[in-house]
């Protein structure tokens, strides 16, 4: 569902991503682990079509992102580290607006159901987003992707700054979406959260993928040791 083939991206002589290739099948949650500057956000921006790779190709559901950006974007949901919505609008108004931008017209009942399914309680949906916590805003962000019927969800440091409960709720929501067939790519440096949420993990260092593993075959402690070892080297 998500495929990166020999992607290289350079910024003013600095290689942010080097010959990166990853294949993520439908319904998998893939965690891209790496320290700051490892190339995680660049990889996500290439998949979003906001950056063009110098070499290689990126595909979403077999659509070349660089060549058919608009078509590919229709299949993508995106959650950034800080989901910044319109603070003067309520949760349901924000969702309604983003749905309209995507050409979807939902009833208020349907919008409420989507928000509820994404973990936002009924009382909160009519409050202004300016009063929301970071976790609540992320739920609205996920609802936007869900309402769009995104086949792929790209998350850039989604758990950063979330309290443990909100983090756990996020993991649960992502797993639910994955069970329904959504493919998830989650970039993070939070080893514990990645281990808890993802089916497979790739470790990125200086723009190169240096290791991949199934989370079923590794404990959190082992993963931490491996990660730190790679970072030291």
């Amino acid at each position, binding site marked *: 569902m998500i495929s990166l083939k020999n992607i290289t991206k350079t910024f003013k002589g600095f290689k942010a991503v080097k010959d990166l290739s990853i294949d993520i099948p439908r319904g998998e949650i893939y965690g891209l682990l790496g320290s700051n500057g490892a190339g995680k956000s660049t990889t996500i921006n290439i998949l979003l079509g*906001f950056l063009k790779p110098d070499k290689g190709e990126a595909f979403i559901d077999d659509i070349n992102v660089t060549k058919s950006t608009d078509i590919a974007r229709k299949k993508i949901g995106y959650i950034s580290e800080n989901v910044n919505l319109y603070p*003067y609008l309520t949760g349901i108004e924000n969702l309604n607006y983003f749905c309209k*931008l995507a050409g979807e017209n939902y009833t208020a009942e349907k919008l409420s159901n989507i928000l509820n399914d994404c973990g936002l309680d009924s009382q909160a949906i009519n409050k202004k987003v300016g009063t929301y916590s970071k976790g609540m805003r992320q739920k609205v962000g996920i609802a936007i992707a869900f309402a769009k019927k995104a086949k792929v969800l790209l998350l850039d440091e989604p758990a950063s700054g979330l309290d443990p409960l909100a983090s756990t709720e996020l993991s649960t929501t992502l797993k639910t979406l994955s069970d329904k067939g959504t493919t998830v790519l989650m970039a993070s440096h939070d080893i514990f959260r990645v281990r808890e949420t993802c089916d497979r993990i790739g470790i990125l260092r200086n723009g190169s993928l240096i290791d991949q593993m199934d989370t079923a075959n590794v404990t959190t402690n082992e993963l931490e040791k491996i990660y730190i070892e790679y970072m030291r080297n």
Partner: protein
Amino acid sequence: MMISIILNEWKILVRNRSIVYVSLVFMLSIISVVWMGNLQSKNQSQAQIAAEKHIRAQWDNLEPMNPHRAAHYGVYVFKPISILNSLDDGVSSITGNVLKLEGHVQNEIVHSEASQSIAISRFGKLKPSTIMQYMVPLFLIFLSFGSISNDKETGRLKLIALQGVSLEKLILSKSLSIWLYGLILLIFSILLQFLLGSSSADFGIRIGFILISYGLYYFIVVCLSTYISASFKNNTSAISLLLATWIMWTIFLPKIWGNTVEKVHPLPSRQNFISQMKEDRSKGIDGHNPTDERRSKLKEEYLARYNVDSLSQLPINFDGIVMQADEEYGNQVWDKHFGNNYLIYQKQKRLYQLSGLLNPFSSLQNLSMGFCGSDMIHHLDFLKKAELYRRYLIKTLNDKHAHGGSKTGEWRWTVDNTFFRSVKTFKYQTMKIKDQIENYYIDILSLIVWVLFSGFLIRYKIKRDIII
């Protein structure tokens, strides 16, 4: 999709209390300035009407006197004050609005507001056009800038782009939503003027043109602001450039260009103008036809025409003929010098109008003054019509002096007020704007060019990498 974005922007504007408060302040300022301006215009207008009646009554009740004495007594005429002058008083506050018309001399218009008020002479007059030309656009710049920079800073641009919205449509929609906000403030102030104004067709046309001119200007300001805001990754650089542009447009360029225009097409100095007029009047326009020679020639001509040997034998009063001839000669001198000045004014105006291609603010100012009837074109028209009336008045008096039954040298001969009452009153009708529109083609064209240019920038020159 664009409608959704515009509606959403409006929802946010309405819910943002600071914007609501600022809008209320704007509206209250506009109401108070329009109301005070109208009140002042009405008071001035009423005072003028009362003064006109009083002066006419004095004229009608003149004691029996020699017509030439009446020519020196003269009359006062007033430049009418339109309700639109309170919207933009243009050059009116510095040119004055009272003119004394009398024999032998073309007086200058006096009693400008600036000459009677230290505040006006130093700081200018607070009028709706000040708010509409300076404050509203500045606020629109901040709104436009914030609208894009917020989305950039918060990363919302990414989210919006992922929903399938093109950057061009987003920026155009945001520009339109802020432009509509400016348009509402504009319509609000124009509507107030309209309700307080007259209902003539010319007034309606002028109001319509004012609305279009300001509407176009606001569109340019908003589009350029959103474009600059969207094009710079650094918000501080973007807002600095916007403010620098605004200052250049409103403060520096008009003055720099104005001074350049005066250097390229200089008007004669006041002293030079007056001394040249005096010289031409005494020595003759060509310098070879002095007053005494002209009088002798005229005398010979009239003696021959009536077939008599001396002035005392003439059945008419030759003094009246001489005065009218001198008056007509003076008119030629005035036409020559004033006509020359008028041509220079025209050249200056044309050159100044071209600055609109660099600075749409100057086009807006020209159009605003023009459509409010307070620019130099309207002022000069008043002066011309007043001069025509002066010529009619003096000729009527001189003709009476010459042909009314007196003989040459009978300076004690008088006419009663039946004659004075028969002299028509000066009634000035402001020019119809549809007959004058060609004077503003360059300004209108400049604004249209700027609108197209702004639209072009948004459509084709937005950099995509601002999203990340």
